[in-house]
């Protein structure tokens, strides 16, 4: 024993040995904790007579979902129900991301506007929205929407769209023969516009001569489909909702839950994006703006060609985390009954009693979504990163 003292001390002073020992201890601790949790879980499940496993996903769900993007009925399985919920999460997140980006960029730039009044208004919007809980805002908008007049007294928007306490009824487009041609034309126009801009960029780098890329691209993308659309005799019919006895017929029904959630998420996240945009623009050194003015660029051109491209590098990382937040926050749907993944999962959980399985599905799906979003945004971030020469 006496001889082992110094040798242990010597081994302990060796950094690699110490690292190994510490990590082994950490690992042992974690494994012990997990084993304890698993043992508890197994014991609790047994005493409560609960089963485990994902087999229940094939069982019929016996509950209805009114907001669905794919075929679903109450005879469908739990798994199908969760898939419907996931698609609803994706739907509201995608809609929200688009609207929040537009709102956020607009508000962020308005806060820096030279117009004193507009800048103050944008500040008021950002500060108020950021400092009030999202759930409160969501419930507020939802209560406004469900407080609208009933079907009989719907608010009409030009007699094609209607708003009432059951949500919005919008005209539904339906394609007629020949509409495929219009879509194909639009696709070709986009390809052509990309080709033109690539060619113009190469020529500008080689010769320094400019080319009105934006005008031509917009002309192509708008002009080609419009011409085809008119030439083919407008092959798109609008199924306009008609007031019926009890409800409207035709058109698309958008639930107040979807509208409220989409609007609340966009307004809330837009305020955070606005802060990121403002910070990004402010992070561009003032000398850049002054140099652009000195070169005779207009205010708009300075913003578009000098400030924004540099600001984007500072805007994209916080933007990514706001997109992730929006997707995660869409789970507040459960409070107003929009049937997203968490809301449907909650129902599945109540019906089947499989808490462990449902929560692990949530975890896997949300982690997957956030991983995908960050991968995409990191790719975009690398693309726009400043190339230092």
């Amino acid at each position, binding site marked *: 024993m006496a001889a082992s003292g110094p040798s242990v001390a010597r081994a302990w002073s060796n950094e690699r040995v110490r690292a190994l020992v510490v990590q082994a201890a950490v690992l042992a601790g974690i494994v012990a904790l997990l084993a304890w949790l698993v043992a*508890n879980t197994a014991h609790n499940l047994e005493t409560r007579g609960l089963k485990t496993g994902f087999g229940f996903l094939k069982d019929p769900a016996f509950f209805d979902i009114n907001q669905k993007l794919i075929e679903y009925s109450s005879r469908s399985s739990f798994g199908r129900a969760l898939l419907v919920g996931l698609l609803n999460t994706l739907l509201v997140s995608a809609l929200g991301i688009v609207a929040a980006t537009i709102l956020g960029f607009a508000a962020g730039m308005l806060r820096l506007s030279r117009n004193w009044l507009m800048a103050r208004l944008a500040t008021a919007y950002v500060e108020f929205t950021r400092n009030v809980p999202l759930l409160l805002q969501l419930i507020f908008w939802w209560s406004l929407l469900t407080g609208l007049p009933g079907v009989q007294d719907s608010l009409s928007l030009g007699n094609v769209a209607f708003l009432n306490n059951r949500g919005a009824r919008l005209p539904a487009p339906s394609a007629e023969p020949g509409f495929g041609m219009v879509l194909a034309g639009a696709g070709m126009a986009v390809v052509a516009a990309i080709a033109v801009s690539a060619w113009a960029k190469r020529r500008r780098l080689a010769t320094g001569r400019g080319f009105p890329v934006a005008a031509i691209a917009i002309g192509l993308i708008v002009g080609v489909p419009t011409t085809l659309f008119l030439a083919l005799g407008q092959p798109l019919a609008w199924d306009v909702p008609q007031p019926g006895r009890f409800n409207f017929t035709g058109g698309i029904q958008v639930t107040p839950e979807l509208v409220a959630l989409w609007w609340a998420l966009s307004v809330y996240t837009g305020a955070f994006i606005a802060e990121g945009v403002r910070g990004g623009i402010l992070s561009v050194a003032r000398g850049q703006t002054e140099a652009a003015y000195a070169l005779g660029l207009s205010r708009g051109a300075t913003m578009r060609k000098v400030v924004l491209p540099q600001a984007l590098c500072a805007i994209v990382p916080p933007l990514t985390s706001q997109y992730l937040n929006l997707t995660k926050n869409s789970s507040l749907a459960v*409070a107003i009954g929009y049937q997203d993944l968490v809301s449907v999962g909650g129902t599945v959980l109540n019906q089947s009693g499989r808490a462990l399985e449902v929560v692990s599905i949530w975890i896997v799906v949300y982690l997957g979504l956030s991983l995908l979003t960050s991968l995409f945004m990191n790719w975009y971030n690398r693309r726009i990163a400043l190339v230092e020469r």
Partner: protein
Amino acid sequence: MSTFHRTTAEMVTPRPPPPLSRGVIGWLRANLFSSWFNAAMTLLAVYLLWLLVPGILRWGLLDADFAGTTRFDCQSAGACWAWVDQRIYQFLYGFYPPEQAWRVNLALTLLIPALLPVLFDRMPGARWARWFSLAYPFVAAFLLVGGYGLAEVPTDRFGGFMLNVAVGLAGILLSLPFGILLALGRRSQLPLVRLLSTAFIETFRGIPLVTFMFAAALLLPIFLPPRFNLDLIMRVIILVTMYASAYIAEVVRGGLQSLPRGQYEAAQALGLGYWRAMRLVILPQALKVSIPGIVNTFIALFKDTTLVIVIGLFDILNIGTSMIANPNWLGLGTEVYAFISIFFFVICFAMSRYSLHLERRLDVGR
């Protein structure tokens, strides 16, 4: 060669700028009507204000009713604020016994002496006062729950705004030590520790808080032995702490990264071991830089405490939504939501200003 000089004995007083670029008119021209686009924006903004402000003022103040015992006492066209007087206790304290409400107030008041020595390190006696800061969470928990001579208040009586504050504060205070450990773990030299910390942080940041609420209600009882038998609010606080520690970890990591390498090397050169270097040199500096981020995390968490309503706890929002289902106050949604919004807004806005101020001060210091 001759040059011409013209000299005067006195300073020529500068002429005043043209009248249109001075005073109110000059300010208006520069800030509101500098171009046709700017002028259009101004008109749009004025139109928006004209749409919103008079309507809100008339509804909320001028045409509003303030007295009465039910909504039927409110006869005018505007808002009905009569409930505020009747229900304010419930909004603030939930179902906490009114004769014990002083304990809630005292716990909240004691927060000030607990925070002061952390925020102002040059305060006289800060070294001793920090012991109180460390003890504060236990003191507050003792005051709220009771026992040992104080009348016990079961946690299911907690509610209203006090529940939001309690869950938010407990979550952030308890998550600080875990967050710091996780941040150190994520920057550790040991690959296994780094991997585990990173996995924990990224997993917990990737999952919505609602999921944690459900887990607190349904999953935690399955994970723990039956004899633990924690009540719902305790379980919520445990999971909120885990959730918040992932965010705190990222804030602290930012603080650690902002320190120059020289600090680490100097600490090593002085012969300090890892923990002593962290405790004496690195963390005091890194945590100071992290305070604004911690405040921001707290604001976010505090707002998110309203999510407890999905598992049926009665925080201020749930007290409000259940009140407007009561026939006496039916349909006063807008009033209730406006009231609660103002509550949160005042507190969160004040804290965010404070964190901004700290950020600027710290920036100057470096």
